[in-house]
Every structure is written in structure tokens, then in C-alpha cells.
């Protein structure tokens, strides 16, 4: 049985700003690092069949790695990918993520659905920190929207 998580968040910016901020390698430090000395590496090949490799952690021995393979890329409204996550202790986790970016009245409603968790406990561990990520994404989006409006 697969355990899924679903998150929604509304951003005060258009879908293109949110979509680009989510994927931009230059934004990942602001989205993922808990401190200035954190290691954050991101490489993205944004096309169907292309990969997105994300590595981050507080030190070399605590790195978390995600390798995603895109199955749908429809900028700026939809993104789907299968992701293999590897924890610092070698455990791996394979899930699938679908994200929609719906624009309306200058805002974007982002819906993220992650499926394939092997247990509710692991799903909840991820669910516990995704809101923090989305909060950071909101901050990045607001900065970019403000810079774009200036």
C-alpha cells in the first residue's frame, strides 16, 4: 500500500515565477540550507527524460541526495518526476512527485502530490518538513516578484 502526501500553497506571484524558483539551481541554497556553511549542489536538465540532481546537507558525511527523472515538463503549469532519495546512512526511497501551478488573479496555487511512501511514518517524516520548504519558497518567490516589479 502506498502512502501519499498532498500539500497546497498559494503564492502572490505568477506561475512562471513560482515554477522557476522551485527548479532554479541558484535558489536551492535558500530553499534547502539551514546554515551558510551547508553544502548544496543542484544540476537540472529540464526536459522529459532529463534529470535533476540535488545534494544537500550540513557536512559531507550528512548529505542527502535526490535524483529525479522528469516524466512531464510543462512550464509553468505542471511538473512530474520520479525521484530516488538517498539518505546519508545509505537508505534509499523511491517516490513520484506531481506538481501543478495554477495561476489566477496574479496568484499561483501550487499543489504538490508525492506518492509511493512505503509507510505512513516515512510519509509523515517528509510531511513534517515540506511546509518549511514551501515557506522558504514563498520567501524566494516574493523576492523575485518584487525584483521583477521594480
Amino acid at each position: 500500500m502506498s502512502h501519499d502526501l498532498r500539500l497546497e500553497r498559494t503564492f502572490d506571484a505568477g506561475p512562471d515565477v513560482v515554477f522557476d524558483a522551485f527548479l532554479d539551481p541558484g535558489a536551492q541554497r535558500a530553499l534547502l540550507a539551514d546554515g551558510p556553511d551547508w553544502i548544496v549542489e543542484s544540476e537540472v536538465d529540464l526536459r522529459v527524460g532529463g534529470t535533476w540532481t540535488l545534494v544537500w546537507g550540513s557536512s559531507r558525511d550528512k548529505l542527502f541526495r535526490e535524483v529525479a527523472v522528469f516524466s512531464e515538463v510543462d512550464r509553468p503549469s505542471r511538473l512530474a518526476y520520479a525521484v530516488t532519495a538517498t539518505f546519508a546512512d545509505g537508505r534509499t526511497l523511491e517516490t513520484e512527485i506531481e506538481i501543478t501551478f495554477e495561476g489566477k488573479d496574479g496568484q499561483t496555487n501550487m499543489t504538490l502530490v508525492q506518492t509511493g511512501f512505503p509507510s505512513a511514518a516515512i510519509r509523515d517524516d517528509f510531511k513534517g518538513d515540506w511546509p518549511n520548504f514551501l515557506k522558504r519558497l514563498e520567501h524566494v518567490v516574493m523576492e523575485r516578484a518584487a525584483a521583477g516589479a521594480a
Partner: protein
Amino acid sequence: MVQSQVLDRTFSALSDPTRRDILDRLAAGPASISELARPIGISLPGVMKHVHILEEANLVVTEKLGRTRECRLGPEQMADATRWIERHRRQWERRLDRLETYVERRQKGVRA
């Protein structure tokens, strides 16, 4: 931060039974947010709020591990609060010792 503010935060954080349950659980070792939530029986956002308050009081530290977060007892734990309680306990002991001496003298005086 001045000492009284540190103590305010510590005692305020400790005033909630759920937060004390979280500290009890973390005394046994690090735990994820969901591991803290399960035995307490409250929602993940609810646990996250309690953990945030404990984190602000330096009673708990959290570390991001990929897309999860691990919680453990803070390095200082309850040192300031313990020192404050110990100082007041010693004051009260001295007062009680003096009261005991006073009562004993009075009793001896009455018997004499």
C-alpha cells in the same frame, strides 16, 4: 538575552504537558517529528509548533536531514532553570534551618 528572559522562556516552554512529553521522549534519543507526534496523538503541525517553542528556549535542537527533520535535546538543556531552582532551594533550606533552630530554642525555653 538577559537571564530573566532565558528563564521566562524555559519555564514557559516547560509549562505545557505536551512539551514535557516531548522532552521525555527525546531524553531516550533523537526522534523525527512524526515519531514525536505518534505517541502523543496530536497533528504534525501541532507537534511542530511545540518543537519550535522548545527550540526557541534552547531545550531542543532540530537538524534538517534531507526533507526530514531530526529533533534532540539541546546542549544546554535545562542548565539555567536547574541553577535557578537550586539557588532558591538552598535559600528555602536555610530559612527552614533557621526556623527549626528558632522553634527548638523556644521549646527549650518553655521547658526550662
